[in-house]
């Protein structure tokens, strides 16, 4: 492939942060394209600083480049100034490694981590010189693919993406590559001979969803009637992919270290994938089940090898709820005490549940330097937290905050959601009550502590029990924000921050749309609406104008409650969760009924394990300290749970609670 560097270089003197476009990161691969390798351009549709740390993209980058029949490069959305300059000078989207034109690759594969980047996806396809609509592409164009959490409702992008891929990508990416490799053009210069046949072949790969292989029908009222396969071999329902053992995939082995500062600029090691705490608002927790822990020994190896290779002085142990990892304290202590770290490496746990955060954990992670500490009670009252199934008690929060302040932290951040189902003003104002008490606890240790309550507007997400809920209006969210602001004003040391309710509405537009939403997204993009994740570029007017132009309204698209038997645009897409399980959980939510974590209690048959014949993989038979989720029930007895315990226990791990729990269980299998 030709290098565009001579055309790119003169542009760099005139743009902000030019090093975004030069590549050269530690860990960047020398990618050579040959006739036998399918060429992939892995694209993160947001700025370099946001996209580079994405672990999913880095994992696929390594796995593909290890294959002799694949070659993968990376690209990110050029910032607004660079894009303008590129368009003026006729420079297309290009790769980081070889500065090769995006249109020359066999595959453009997008990571979709947030809905508001959808307009950037269209923009980047266009900047690559590729028709934005899948139907307009020919053998001369790359196959456009997309993966990531957002693809669990692929319909809003179905007109633009040739093939979506659901779930864990580690295994399926190789299967896709094999199919692509078998469709070389006669000249052999690119993949894509007989594009329709190629797409049909891709649709047979489990986990792949090819929208053009499906017909969409609507009823007389204009409501979606169904999305049905066109071909006999096309699956009626596409199931996500799940890797059974994270220990088989110790990636990234060579995490990218950028030349410039990016978000999450540190070593990241994934502790486990999946979460069964069952928070009903949390899409990530629902679609990534079951829990699969990485063996503690592998975590240690990845941390020590990663620190040595990168020179980072901070490591984040990532997951959806890191304090739930079996033996988390031992793992953290092991890293900090490692002589190779010279006492200068700090550990951060990005997602902390307050009921699993102890003084011990606090003491360990602050030994080198105090990274930011954030807790997420999400709801202001116990009633609210029962509805959302975030079953942490006030005492749990106060104990965690006390642990933090007593260990020397002076600033603590709390995350909350507003606009949750059944929320009353009492629930909303409960946020200030909680935060105020946290300030009071802090003042016992230090006179000038601050507590920041970050408040986001709730967007109901697909494949969760709240997928039927009608989102709060902009006006209602704004009213609640004002309630909070006014109540917090007299409290010294308490700051309230909130997400723009207008952006929350726009996110709602795309989250649950059907295929017709594609026209809206395209219009927003055509009218200049890129980087909608960024407040300086976000423009609600673009979205409401586009909705109106397509005969849609915020009321119907965003604020309307969905009904029990309504066809949902993502019904043909499966994260393994039974629809009746989700509906039951929705009814339980409305009844303010909480549901304990199934890692340590009997199975609810949500479908994520049983449907795929996979199991939870955890090292500890008992929940972490405080892990009763406030329900007060004795979890130590366990039950017939489809849990496979790791055969190697984290060293020194001891049961944190419970009477009957012997040391670490080495059992395998409980039949589900």
């Amino acid at each position, binding site marked *: 492939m030709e290098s565009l560097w001579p055309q790119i270089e003169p542009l760099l003197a005139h743009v902000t942060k030019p090093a975004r476009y030069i590549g050269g990161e530690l860990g960047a691969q020398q990618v050579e394209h040959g006739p036998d390798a399918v060429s992939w351009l892995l694209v993160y549709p947001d700025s370099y600083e946001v996209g580079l740390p994405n672990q999913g993209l880095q994992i696929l980058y390594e796995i593909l480049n290890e294959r002799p029949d694949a070659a993968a490069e990376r690209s990110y959305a050029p910032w607004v100034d660079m894009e303008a300059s590129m368009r003026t000078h006729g420079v297309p989207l290009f790769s980081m490694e070889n500065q090769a034109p995006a249109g020359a690759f066999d595959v453009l594969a997008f990571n979709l981590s947030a809905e508001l980047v959808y307009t950037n996806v269209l923009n980047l396809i266009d900047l690559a010189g590729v028709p934005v609509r899948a139907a307009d592409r020919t053998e001369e164009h790359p196959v456009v693919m997309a993966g990531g959490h957002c693809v669990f409702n692929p319909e809003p992008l179905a007109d633009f993406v040739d093939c979506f891929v659901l779930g864990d990508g580690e295994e399926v990416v190789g299967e896709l590559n094999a199919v692509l490799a078998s469709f070389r053009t006669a000249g052999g210069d690119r993949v894509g001979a007989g594009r329709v046949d190629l797409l049909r072949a891709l649709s047979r790969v489990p986990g792949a969803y090819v929208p053009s292989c499906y017909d969409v029908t609507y009823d007389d009222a204009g409501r979606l009637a169904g999305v049905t396969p066109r071909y006999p071999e096309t699956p009626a329902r596409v199931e996500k992919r799940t890797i059974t053992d994270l220990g088989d995939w110790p990636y990234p082995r060579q995490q990218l270290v950028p*030349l410039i500062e990016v978000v999450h600029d540190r070593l990241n090691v994934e502790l486990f994938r999946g979460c069964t705490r069952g928070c009903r608002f949390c899409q990530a927790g629902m679609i990534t089940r079951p829990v699969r822990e990485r063996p503690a020994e592998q975590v240690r190896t990845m941390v020590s090898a990663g620190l040595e290779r990168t020179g980072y002085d901070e490591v984040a142990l990532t997951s959806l709820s890191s304090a739930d990892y079996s033996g988390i304290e031992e793992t953290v202590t092991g890293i900090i005490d490692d002589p190779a770290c010279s006492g200068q490496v700090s550990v951060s746990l990005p997602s902390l549940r307050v009921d699993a955060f102890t003084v011990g954990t606090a003491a360990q992670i602050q030994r080198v330097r105090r990274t930011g500490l954030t807790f997420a009670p999400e709801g202001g009252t116990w009633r609210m937290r029962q509805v959302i199934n975030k079953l942490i008690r006030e005492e749990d929060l106060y104990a965690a905050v006390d642990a933090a302040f007593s260990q020397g932290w002076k600033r603590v951040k709390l995350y909350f959601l507003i606009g949750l189902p059944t929320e009353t003003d009492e629930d909303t104002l409960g946020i200030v009550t909680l935060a105020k008490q946290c300030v009071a606890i802090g003042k016992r240790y230090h006179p000038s502590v601050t507590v920041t309550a970050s408040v986001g507007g709730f967007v109901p997400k697909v494949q969760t029990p709240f997928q039927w809920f009608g989102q709060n209006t902009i006006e209602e969210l704004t009213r609640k924000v004002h309630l909070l602001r006014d109540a917090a004003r007299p409290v010294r040391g308490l700051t309230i921050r909130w997400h723009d309710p207008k952006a929350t509405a726009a996110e709602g537009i795309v989250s649950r749309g059907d295929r017709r939403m594609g026209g809206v997204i395209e219009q927003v993009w055509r009218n200049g609406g890129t980087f909608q994740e960024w407040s300086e570029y976000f423009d609600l007017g673009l979205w409401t104008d586009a909705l109106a132009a397509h005969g849609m309204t915020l009321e119907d698209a965003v604020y309307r409650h969905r009904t029990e038997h309504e066809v949902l645009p993502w019904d043909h897409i499966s994260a393994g969760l039974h629809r009746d399980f989700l509906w039951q959980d929705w009814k339980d939510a409305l009844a303010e009924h909480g549901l304990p974590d199934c890692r340590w209690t009997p199975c609810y048959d949500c479908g994520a394990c049983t449907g795929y014949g996979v199991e939870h993989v955890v090292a500890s038979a008992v929940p972490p300290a405080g892990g009763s989720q406030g329900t007060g029930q004795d979890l130590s007895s366990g039950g017939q749970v489809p849990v496979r315990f790791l055969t190697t226990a984290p060293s020194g791990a001891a049961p944190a609670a419970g009477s009957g729990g012997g040391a670490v269980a080495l059992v395998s299998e409980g039949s589900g």
Partner: protein
Amino acid sequence: MRIRFRFSKLGRIRFTSQRDVARMWERALRRARLPLAYTEGFSPRPQLSFGLALPTGAESLAEYLDVALDPVRAVDDGIDVATLPGTLDVLLPDGIDIEEAVVVERSKDSLQQMVTSCSWTMRLTGISREDLEERVAAVLAADVLPIMRERKGRQEQDDLRPSVLTLAGAGVDQDVAADPTGRTVGLVAELSTQPRGVRPVELVRGLIAVADGAAGLSPEGPDLAGRPGRIPVLDRACRTHQWIVRDGLREEPLRGRGIPAGADRALHAMERAS
């Protein structure tokens, strides 16, 4: 114990900022397991001190870094300064190359405070050698040279003339197909760094202002329309020396045994594919 490094920054890596370079060094020093001395406090950082910041986009043959080592551990570990350039070079990104490393006395002034001027080699496009020579002569003959400069986010007028210590055309003209005039011209200058450092792009603005007045005052740069071949445009800039005054003599913080520094090397580096 303090070690002073002299290093170059050439090629694509020039698009990184001074802060980026500092972080590259921090990571490389940790990977080399050097016993770094850390600052006190809740958020300890390695004690690194750079010379005068290099503008993003500029290259250099003369960057400096002082690294403080923990004296006890440095002795225990038997640090051999002579081996450090070899050890660290492979840990630093392409384009950052260590020229020299020596143990230096701990001085009360930072490198940044000690540097009084810098020498630069620049490559300009958009102007003929004859026109450039005219402008150079005009700058040297001028008493004052007002340009607009940014200060704390605001544009203000400043006199550039006292900061221009030397200025001359340099090197042979190069044929560059991409340039409208078909070539580039070289320029060397020594620019004072006190009270305020002058960046090459500001010097070029002065070269415009000296003949075209208001064009140089525009913070957006010159309007080139209709005047091809007359208005200089900065293509590349390379810092070749940072100068300090010691015992009344102008010298470099590290003398650079065997370092072929200077304008020729800078121009040569610019010609290499980046």
